[in-house]
């Protein structure tokens, strides 16, 4: 009778419920499956529409236009949105006209420049994929890993250390070794809250947040102390990693597109295989979806929790290692532009399925990369993308908003309606 008191953590659990109750990517439930795709798509569209309204409200020309006449106002409305989103698109995918011209001109540098926006979007997407997978794996195991950012830092730091401290190794060994170091660094930072949760019941949300701060300050100290680049003049930055540890980029400047993107796709497939094709994954998903049933069926909750948090941390660590080894080539505090926090949105958007996370990461990558161009062309601050991302996340977390905006019937209403009356509803 006595309902448990609601805590802030219950809100997180509610989100978690929404996620873990999502259908596994298997056959069946046609209507429901269609909504799995439809809701995120409409959430993105709605986010862009509201983003457009915000752009209008903050654009001086629109107000000036409406002061002149209604017609001038409307044309200013059209112009500013078209300009902004046009620039966003061009920044994300590139300008098709320029691409064709470049191909005809045969100028190698111009070709690279023309195709760079699209490839750069993939580069931006790469850390999102790793980090999104980290959160998704946690969700599947019923754990809310908010510590991806900290795990990412620990992974990056570990990878950097292996990258510059070991010398003379061949690239085929050094680069994978540095990636592995990243996974271990992040994994360790995931293991700690996992162990605390399993053994003491300490909630992973609290502990991962706290460990984020420890990771930031630890990295800060390392970069100002033992790991500081000699002769850096007091700047907190690590030495540059060895060439053999670098993740190779495929093309010349300015294209940064690198092997890490394909490694990310490979890891996504690996996570899918692990979660849905192995006994470990079955175990993990069962405990995540209903720990009681898992316990009754003889599964080891303690082992599962620790394993899931460690793996989640390792994936986050790979995100950090990827950035260092492929892009920055040295470690500094400005490494991450909030990948760890965006990754929560990605996992939600991707319904915690590896394929969904990859698609969501691409979306975020294209938006982020396009926004840089948009800022240059139409003077719209890049922050608008953060607003759009936040809106998308809100709509994903509260699908009822999208359903009512777009007049979609909730999936399986019928069966829910029946369930109300057919089950015994919780306890006689």
């Amino acid at each position, binding site marked *: *009778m*006595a309902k448990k008191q609601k805590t802030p953590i219950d809100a997180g659990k509610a989100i978690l419920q929404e996620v*873990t*109750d*999502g*259908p*596994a990517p*298997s*056959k*069946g*439930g046609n209507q429901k499956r269609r909504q799995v795709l439809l809701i995120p798509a409409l959430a993105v569209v709605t986010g862009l529409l509201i983003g457009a309204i915000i752009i209008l409200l903050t654009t001086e020309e629109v107000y000036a236009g409406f002061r002149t006449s209604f017609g001038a106002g409307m044309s200013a409305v059209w112009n500013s949105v078209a300009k902004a989103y046009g620039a966003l698109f061009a920044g994300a995918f590139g300008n098709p006209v320029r691409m064709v011209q470049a191909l005809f001109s045969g100028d190698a540098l111009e070709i690279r420049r023309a195709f760079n926006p699209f490839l750069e979007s993939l580069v931006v997407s790469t850390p999102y994929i790793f980090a999104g997978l980290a959160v998704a794996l946690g969700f599947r195991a019923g754990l809310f890993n908010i510590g991806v950012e900290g795990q990412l830092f620990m992974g990056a730091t570990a990878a950097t250390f292996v990258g510059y401290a070991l010398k003379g190794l061949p690239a085929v060994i050094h680069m994978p070794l540095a990636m592995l170091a990243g996974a271990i660094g992040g994994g360790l930072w995931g293991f700690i809250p996992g162990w605390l949760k399993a053994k003491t019941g300490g909630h992973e949300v609290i502990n991962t947040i706290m460990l984020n701060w420890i990771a930031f300050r630890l990295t800060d100290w390392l970069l100002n102390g033992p790991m500081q680049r000699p002769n850096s003049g007091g700047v907190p930055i690590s030495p540059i990693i060895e060439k053999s540890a670098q993740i190779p980029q495929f093309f010349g400047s300015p294209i940064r597109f690198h092997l890490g993107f394909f490694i990310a796709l490979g890891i996504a497939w690996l996570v899918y295989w692990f979660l849905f*094709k*192995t*006994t*470990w994954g*079955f*175990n993990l*998903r*069962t405990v995540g*979806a*209903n720990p*009681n*049933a*898992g*316990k*009754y*069926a*003889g*599964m*080891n909750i303690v082992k599962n929790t620790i394993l899931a948090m460690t793996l989640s941390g390792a994936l986050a660590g790979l995100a950090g290692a990827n950035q260092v080894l492929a892009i920055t080539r040295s470690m500094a505090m400005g490494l991450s532009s909030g990948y760890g926090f965006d990754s929560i949105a990605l996992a939600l958007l991707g319904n915690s399925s590896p394929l969904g996370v990859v698609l969501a990461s691409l979306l975020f990558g294209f938006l982020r990369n396009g926004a840089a161009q948009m800022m240059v062309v139409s003077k719209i601050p890049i922050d608008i993308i953060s607003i759009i991302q936040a809106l998308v996340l809100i709509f994903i977390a509260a699908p009822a908003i999208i359903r009512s905006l777009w007049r979609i*019937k909730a999936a*399986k*209403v*019928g*069966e829910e*309606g*029946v*369930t*109300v*009356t*057919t*089950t*015994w*509803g*919780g*306890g*006689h």
Partner: protein
Amino acid sequence: MTPILQLTNITKRFPGVLANDHINLELNQGEILALLGENGAGKTTLMNILYGLYQPDEGEILVRGEKITVHSPTDAINAGIGMVHQHFMLIPVFTVTENVMLGQEEANKLGFLNRPKAAARIREVSEQYGLEVDPDAYVKDLPVGVQQRVEIIKLLYRNAEILIFDEPTAVLTPQEADDLFKIMRSLAEQGKSIIFITHKLREVLDVADRIMVIRRGAVVGQTLPSEADKNTLAAMMVGRAVQLEVEKKPSQPSEIVLEVKNLVVADDTQQVMVDDISFEVRAGEIMGIAGVQGNGQTELVAAVTGLRRPTSGSIKLLGKDITHSTPRRITELGCAHVPEDRQKDGLVLSFPVKDNLVLCTYYKHPFARGVNLNEDRINKNAVDLIEQYDIRTPNAETSVGSLSGGNQQKVIVAREFSRPIRFLVASQPTRGLDVGSIEYIHNRIVEKRDQGTAILLVSPELDEVMELSDRIAVMYRGKIVAIVDSDVATKEYIGLLMAGISPETLPPPTEKHAVEATL
């Protein structure tokens, strides 16, 4: 005389389902109308419409001949309609008075709560209808039966004329249920009108003035208790003849399978819930544990299945000590477990049927090759078991959460019974199920017994324990007060033991000295 309540042509559709199909219902003043039907027949939907939780697609509600619209429970209460829910809507840390006045607080001129005035009114109401309750007691300190009285008082306090009772006896002991029936009679005699929703046949025959049976959303018949018996009612509910009594041969117990010695188990708050009990269960017999919920049965089952560490004592399964074994080891020794809360503990509702069917065996041959799941075998297993256990599901991929309660239970039974097992723990195996499903599950349990499985059956439903068990152990406050052979035990005798009456003070159930007091 105009009926106090009339429902005409009430129809409610959910996508793909006709939950209520042109239902007509009349309730006269001072009458107890029993609404009988299986789970999912549409009784709860109908009452939710009456109570304003759903809107009907068609049909009208008339109170004293006047049409009313009910958009919310508030509208219903204003129209004099009140509902006693299956799950109480009480705040445990508030007193009875505070709970009753909640939402309709008595206040003095300064806006302060006037508790004494409300308490006086509660005393008045409780005396008038024989609802004994202390207005100043905290709800958390009250037994379940009394809490239910508080719910009733809440309605009377709001001047409800039509009272709806939704499965009110589910949480009560047999004696408490009898008290409730007395209260219902007293309410009816004083002019209140009652709709009593249930799927328990005995209760309907005991208390109702008139019986209406609903099946698949439509009224299939009306009858009077004097003209009906359990079998005819069950047939009306299910739509075919149902065999209510379990047919079973005398048991042939052989070797000891489960041996519990001096077992002590504490709950999470370190309170001793199982207090030094010893018993054994033999192959080929069903040992029933009777007792009001909360007298240690849950903890006993948890200890036997490895889910809770006993404080002291020992448990042996097939001669092997399992006192401190993990659930998985106990499962692998041949123990099957049908948990008391199938949705919370027995199933992963968001998983498909096929995955739920291998929840205990997914890691073993043939369902796994190394770490890889063998999906072909998992699918085949599902198809076979769905057929063999008659699980009504669109397919093996459907999530278990969208199945009916009976079919969810069949998934568990199929999973547990299809393994080679020597020992079965069944906790409330038919909780909340309808007559048809109960018949099915009972027959399967007896079948397992006849195959030589030792069975420990725990249920607060005395009827179930009496029907299925070969021996009955009665638990009261963590102790087994007596173990009785079921063929000599009477219901009254067991009921008194459940209420804590010591067996020494009772005459033995029959002339045979079948009672072994174990105190």
